[in-house]
Each structure stands twice: as structure tokens, then as C-alpha cells.
């Protein structure tokens, strides 16, 4: 047992996934309430099972909190510096998705790679430029031109198509 002076272990983060699961299950139940039993039987049975499991988890954590062994503080264990970089990276990926339809796959991927490496502390210019130029060109040549996958096109793809006489 913990001594009176010992810090309580934060366990609030252990409720994030169950909260997401329960929230989603409630939404699922709401969307299937009017449907025939075949359409919802599987989800309802699993959903009820999930509620039961989460209830047991809540009791387990509640007992620990009541005993003073744990607190409901939320932490994912990372230091602020790493969390800042992580949030920056997620923001960068969101920006990548927003810019993709306008700038096309090749340019957006190049910018994303350069910014990503810079954000993570890469300062060696030849590597930064090499990786962020060669990789998108490889993607363009193999996946867009070679395999014909319909990635969003932008100024680069259109210019290359016009220059090389490639079809749409």
C-alpha cells in the first residue's frame, strides 16, 4: 500500500479510450434504434458487453481513487517539449491534407517532408532538400505516372503532363 506521503498515480488517461468507445456506442445505438433486429443485433450485443466491461473498469479505478492510490489527473507521460513537437506534427499533417487539393500531391508532399524534418530538428540542408525532393518525385513517377493512381494533381503534375505529353 502507498504511504501517506506518496504521490497518487494519475489514471484519468486510462478513461480516454473507454470514453471514446462508450460515446461511439451510444451514437451507434441512436442510429440503429429504428432498424430491424438483423441490422442491429450484432452491434447491440457487443455494445452492451462493452458497457459492462467499462463499468467494471470504472469500479476498479474508483476503488483505487477512493483508497488514495490514484488520482483522476490525465497524462500521457510525455514531456512538454516532445508534446509540442507532436502537436506540431499533427498540425502539419492537417495542413498537408488541406493543401493537397490545391497544390497537388508532389508539391504538398515535398513541403510536408521538408517542414516535418525541420520541425524534428533536422538542419542538414543537403539531406533536407534531397529527401524532400527525391521522395515526392519518386511518388509522382511510380504511383501517379507508372501505376496511374488518381492522386490530387496540382501545378507540378499539370506542368509535367504538358511537358512530357502525358495523358490525364
Amino acid at each position, binding site marked *: 500500500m502507498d504511504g501517506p506521503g506518496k504521490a497518487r498515480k494519475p489514471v484519468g*488517461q*486510462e478513461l*480516454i*479510450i*473507454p470514453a*471514446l*468507445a462508450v460515446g*461511439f456506442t451510444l*451514437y*451507434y445505438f441512436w*442510429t*440503429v434504434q429504428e*432498424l*430491424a433486429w*438483423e*441490422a*442491429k443485433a*450484432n*452491434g447491440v450485443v*457487443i*455494445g452492451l*458487453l*462493452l458497457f459492462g*466491461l*467499462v463499468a*467494471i*473498469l470504472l469500479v*476498479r479505478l474508483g476503488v483505487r481513487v477512493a483508497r488514495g492510490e490514484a488520482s483522476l489527473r490525465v497524462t*500521457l*507521460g510525455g514531456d512538454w517539449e*516532445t508534446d509540442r*513537437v*507532436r502537436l506540431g*506534427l*499533427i498540425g502539419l*499533417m*492537417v495542413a*498537408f*491534407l488541406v493543401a*493537397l*487539393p490545391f497544390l497537388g500531391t508532389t508539391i504538398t*508532399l515535398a513541403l*510536408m*517532408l521538408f517542414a*516535418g*524534418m525541420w520541425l*524534428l*530538428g*533536422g538542419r542538414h540542408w543537403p*539531406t533536407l532538400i534531397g*529527401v524532400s525532393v527525391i*521522395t515526392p518525385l519518386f*511518388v509522382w513517377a511510380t*504511383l501517379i505516372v507508372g*501505376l*496511374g*493512381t*488518381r*492522386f*490530387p494533381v496540382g501545378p507540378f503534375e499539370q506542368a509535367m503532363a504538358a511537358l512530357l505529353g502525358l495523358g490525364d
Partner: protein
Amino acid sequence: MELDLGTLADLFARSFSLWWVIIPGIALGLAVGVLPGFSPQNTLIILLPVTLAMDIEAALAFMIALYCANHLSGGIPAILVNIPGSGGAAATTIDGYQMTKNGQAQQALVLSFVASVVGGLITSVAVLAILPWLAQLGLILRSVEMVVIILFGLTLIAVLAAKDMLKGLIGGAFGLMLGAIGTDQVYSTPRATFGFLELYDGLPLVPVLIGLFAVSECLVMLEEKFSPKAIPSKAQRPQWADTLDGLRMSLKYWWQIVWTGFLGLVIGVIPGAGAYIASFVAYQQSRLFSKTPEKYGTGFPPGVIAPESANNGVTSGTLVPTMAIGIPGGSTAAVMLIVLQYQGITVGPRLFQDNPNVAYGVFVMMTVAYILMIPLILPLARYASKVVTVPVHIIVPLILGLTVVGAFADREYIFDMALALVFGVIGYIAVKTNYHVTSILIGVLLGPIFERYLLRALRIGQGDIMVLFSSPIANVLWGLLVISVVYPLWRERRLARAAAP
């Protein structure tokens, strides 16, 4: 449907003479398989104009080589960076990535390659011998039996959850709920789609796979500083000695390769049952029969062998119902069916009388493809393992960029890229709070298939749940399922009692 030795020798000679299409097929399959999102069927569809222009034997050899190599290479990123190239390689991450963390990346790759090649090789040879009987399996095993087979895969959730059963089961149930997204199997009414048309067909597997494994792993890498400093020095200097060590391990566990390969073959024969069912069932069964189940998940070689061998055993199994009864065993087999029909070849029982060279030739080509793969892939282990030495500030943006691009490739929706990001954040939280991401993935992968077969069985039984116990084969499978759940618990309790003072 008899096959004499003279015909067989002739088929082998002709297949080896097609090396000029088999080797490019292998190379393309390896390259495409490493990238999550690039499935063999999509690649074959894109290349359909090329294959339709080839003569039938060359086209089949090319498609089969690509298909087999694709199944093999999905394990490479699973082992090196914890990102399965396909759903069939998801179970490989459990022990494969752990081996990489233990400084045994090269050995893990060799184990994966040998298990894949030998698993694929022996099952394709076996199919040649027992094809007429094996073909019946696809007709005997119906929805009732499939429900139990899928439950075998789902029990892996409980196995993975051994350290914290409650969290593992919550993760698995969450995955199963997510798997219920999309229109229902009977009336096609949308369920929990958040109003997105893109979710009407269900949760797309590739973005989920990429999010839960690739994106979340990138976010974890930042914290763990999984840089060259953190990797054992042995992994930085790939040596042939490590390749030999991997071969030695493969020899030691040869029996694992054999029986899990055959397990994959049997599951592959059942139309609709995919490589991921086979690999999860094989991992679960391998752990069940192991004398040291506690080593699974810690970088244990059989944990790499079982899913990889089964994953490749599926390749020959999938083609059995395609050739013998005309029902494609999977989506890649369906593409092959298109090419055969275009060339005027009708598959089904008559194929063995009308075109035995094609019927048996397919499996001979598969055998030859696996033989030619051996010298091509073993040296790859040495050089591919260098990936783990790439610094974090380069590998993380590269993985993020290429896998999120891969999320687009499967269905060509930007929505899928966003979905990969969402699942990346969910996966990261799950990893950091000890909810096993593989448990969530198993639920997402197997949930919709389970529901489909369960509803089909219930409709056959007019809603009576007892239909699930109405067939002798299903009842035997139920018995085995109960044993496979109860036996590990009994064994652990017995060991705990023995260890107690």
C-alpha cells in the same frame, strides 16, 4: 482430374521458362507490398491492360508471382517499423517489431522470409497432390462453420489482453463496434456513419491499419527517441552472420512453419476468408500449443513464423475454389478470373478436363515463383534491416508522408487520409494507456465478417440461434474453440499453483 508425373515435369519446365515475367512480378509484388494501401488486386487491376495483352501462361505467371511476393513483403515494414504492409501482416508486428527492438531485425526478416516462402511452397505443392479433395472444402464449410472459425481469430483478443484482460477486452469490443460502421448486411441501412457517404461501405481497413500502426508509431517514436543511439549496436552493422542466425532459427522451428502454413491453406480455401483471419488464427493457435506461451509478444521467433507462414499458405488456398469451383477465394483471385475469362477459359470442375495445363499450371507456377523468390529475398534481409538506423527526424516524416499517401491509394478519397490521422491519434492514446492496438484492429478486421456470416447463418436457421450448433463439423469446431479458450487458462492456473510456495 488425375495428374501424371510426365505432365507435372512438363508444367514445371514451362513455368521455369517463364522466369522473365515471374522475376518482374516478384519485384513489383515486393515493392507494392511494403506500402500499406497498395493491395495486389489494385495493382493487378491497374496492370490489366498489360496482362490481357500477354498470352495466358505468361499473364498467369506474372499475376501469381506478384500476388505471392506481395503477401511476403507485407511483413517487412511490420517487423522494421511496426507498420504492417497489409492486414495479413498485422499479427507479425506483435513479435516481429519486438525482435527489432531487441536488436534482431535481420533475424526477424529472415524468419519472416523463410516462413513465407516455405509456407507458400509446401502448400502449393500439397495443393497439386490433393486439389480434388481440397476443392470440396469450400463447399463443405458454410456460414455456420465460418462463424466458429472467425471466433478462433477473435479469441486472440483475449490472448493479447493477457497482461490486462479488462483493457484488452475493452479495446477489442471498441474495435468490433467500429467494425459495425456502415450499411447493414441485410437491408443496407446506414449505421453510425456520421453522415459520411465514404463510410457506407464500412470502415475502410487500410486507413485504420495505417492510423493505428504507422501514424501512432510515428507519434510514439518522437517520445521514445528510437534513434540509432537507442538501437543495439548490432543492428547498425548488418552481417551475413545474422542472416545465418535467422536461417538457424527457421530450421529450429521448421514444424511451426509446416503446420501454420497448412492452417493458412485450409482457411484460404474458404471463399471470403482472408489472410488476416489465417494469420491471427495461426498466431493464436501457435501460442496455444507452445510450451512457452509467455514468450509470445517478447520477440519470440514462432510469433513471427506462425502469421507469416499462414499468410502465404493462404495464397495457394485462395486459388483452389477459384480453379476448382469457379468461386474466387479472394479479390486478387477475382482479378485472375477476369483474365482467364477474357482468354476464353471457363473455370470450374470442367477446367481439369478441358485445360489441365492451366488448372494445375497455376499451382506449379506458384511453386516456381516461391523457388525463384529464395535467392532474391534472402540478401534483402541484410539491407532492409538498415532502415532501423535511419534517424528519427528523417524516418518519421517519411513514414507519415508515404503511409498517409498510401491511405489515399486504396479508394482514392482524401477522406481516407484524414481517417488515418484520426486513427493515428486514437492509436497513440491506446498505446500510451496500454490498450493493445492489435486488439482494436482485430475487432475492426473481423467484426464485419463475423456479422456477415452470423446473420447469414441465422437467416438460414430462420432466426434460431441453435442453427450454430446444427452441423457436425461446426460442433467439432465449437469443441476445439472451447478447448483453445479454456486450456490456456487451466495451464496458467496450474503453472501458478506449481510456482506458489
